[in-house]
């Protein structure tokens, strides 16, 4: 396996995925690095990439007039940044900013969507990986919303 494919296969998100799929995905992937304060994505931009974080910390933020940039979630090595690429209009609904030096694998979303269309087995394998993340994020968001520590 190519070096990048190996890195992808080693990422927790791809645990258990057949190495052929890793190789397929690999052609959409490249290594990236963000310094503290750099944005990975911006709200409203085209969701061209998704990021598999390898190390570092990223804040998901929304800009609220009068309150500034509010962080609603932080992500770390092993996490996925970006789900908006899954559904039209393929635009980011929040900002993502590196809080410290962060290394990640950037996956070209268009490339990935095209490959999933062409190979439904690959598509299903990837959905099996992304959907649990979505559900877990939803459950976490609900708990945060309930303000359970409040009175």
């Amino acid at each position: 396996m190519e070096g990048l494919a190996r890195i992808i296969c080693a990422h927790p998100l791809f645990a258990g995925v057949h190495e052929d799929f890793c190789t397929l995905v690999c052609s959409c992937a490249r290594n990236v690095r963000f310094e503290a304060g750099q944005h990975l994505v911006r709200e409203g931009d085209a969701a061209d990439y998704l990021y598999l974080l390898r190390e570092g910390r990223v804040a998901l933020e929304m800009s609220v007039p009068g309150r500034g940039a509010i962080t609603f979630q932080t992500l770390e090595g092993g996490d996925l940044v970006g789900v908006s690429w899954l559904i039209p209009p393929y635009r980011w609904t929040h900002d993502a900013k590196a809080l410290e030096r962060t290394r990640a694998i950037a996956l070209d979303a268009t490339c990935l969507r095209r490959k999933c269309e062409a190979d439904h087995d690959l598509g299903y394998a990837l959905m099996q990986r992304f959907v649990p993340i979505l559900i877990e994020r939803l459950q976490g968001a609900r708990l945060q919303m309930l303000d359970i520590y409040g009175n």
Partner: protein
Amino acid sequence: MAIERVGVAASAGPAEVPWPTRVCRRRQEAPDVWTLDLEAPVGAAAAFAPGQFNMLTVFGVGEIPVSLSGDPSRSQSWVHTVRAVGPVSQALATAPVGTVLGARGPYGSDWPLSVGLGRDILLIAGGLGLAPLRPAIYALLAARAHYGRLALCYGARGPRDLLFRREFARWARGMQVQTTVDHAPAGWSGRVGVVTRLIERADFRPERSLALVCGPEVMMRFAVAALRAAGVDDDYIYLSLERNMKCALARCGRCQLGGTLVCRDGPVMCYGRVGHLLRVPEL
């Protein structure tokens, strides 16, 4: 599973009568949370086991249960942490040094640290829930060699609500400490997200762990779900539960949760034993 309980509190007279005691120190931990040190009453046992609570009286106002949050190896004073949410807790929280309060206890079951000997210990705390867990942390760190890995996952509403922050660095020398908040102000570079997410990154081996969980009941339910999904056995998950308590003596009937009396069979209870009760709404 046997309920561990420190011996019945000694009392010269009827058990519902408090001893007068004085506030000797106070410190604010969070916008609505204070820690009070009370003098150990003369002639009374100030010893307590981690997880237990006292009943504190503000004369003329009322009495509430308050977690003992200090170091159990130091019994010269009784350390309590209280959140100001009602008339009694508000009065306790603002009582100046020198105020005479009433105290009685300790009551309730304690964290079963002996069950954790040789095991990894995972502590999961939410908000004020770190207060009754802090004595367990002190006890675990003081006997570090008797346990496997130690890990704390702690979440609060916001950065200012994280209790005992000044101690995290010291604790981190003997255990893994992870914190997170639900809501972050601008400029916060720590973690944001629910406390249950910290469990994935916690340093523990599920098949040989003891989990101690304390926080809002909703949070405890989700934490337990995450622990079970990770493979921790129900009999090795302990929660600290809370119900309305007026007497702490198993006589007023208010703290019932199904067949248990939280003041007597709890507040620390084994999930394997009471988990089914938590799933019945309004029980």
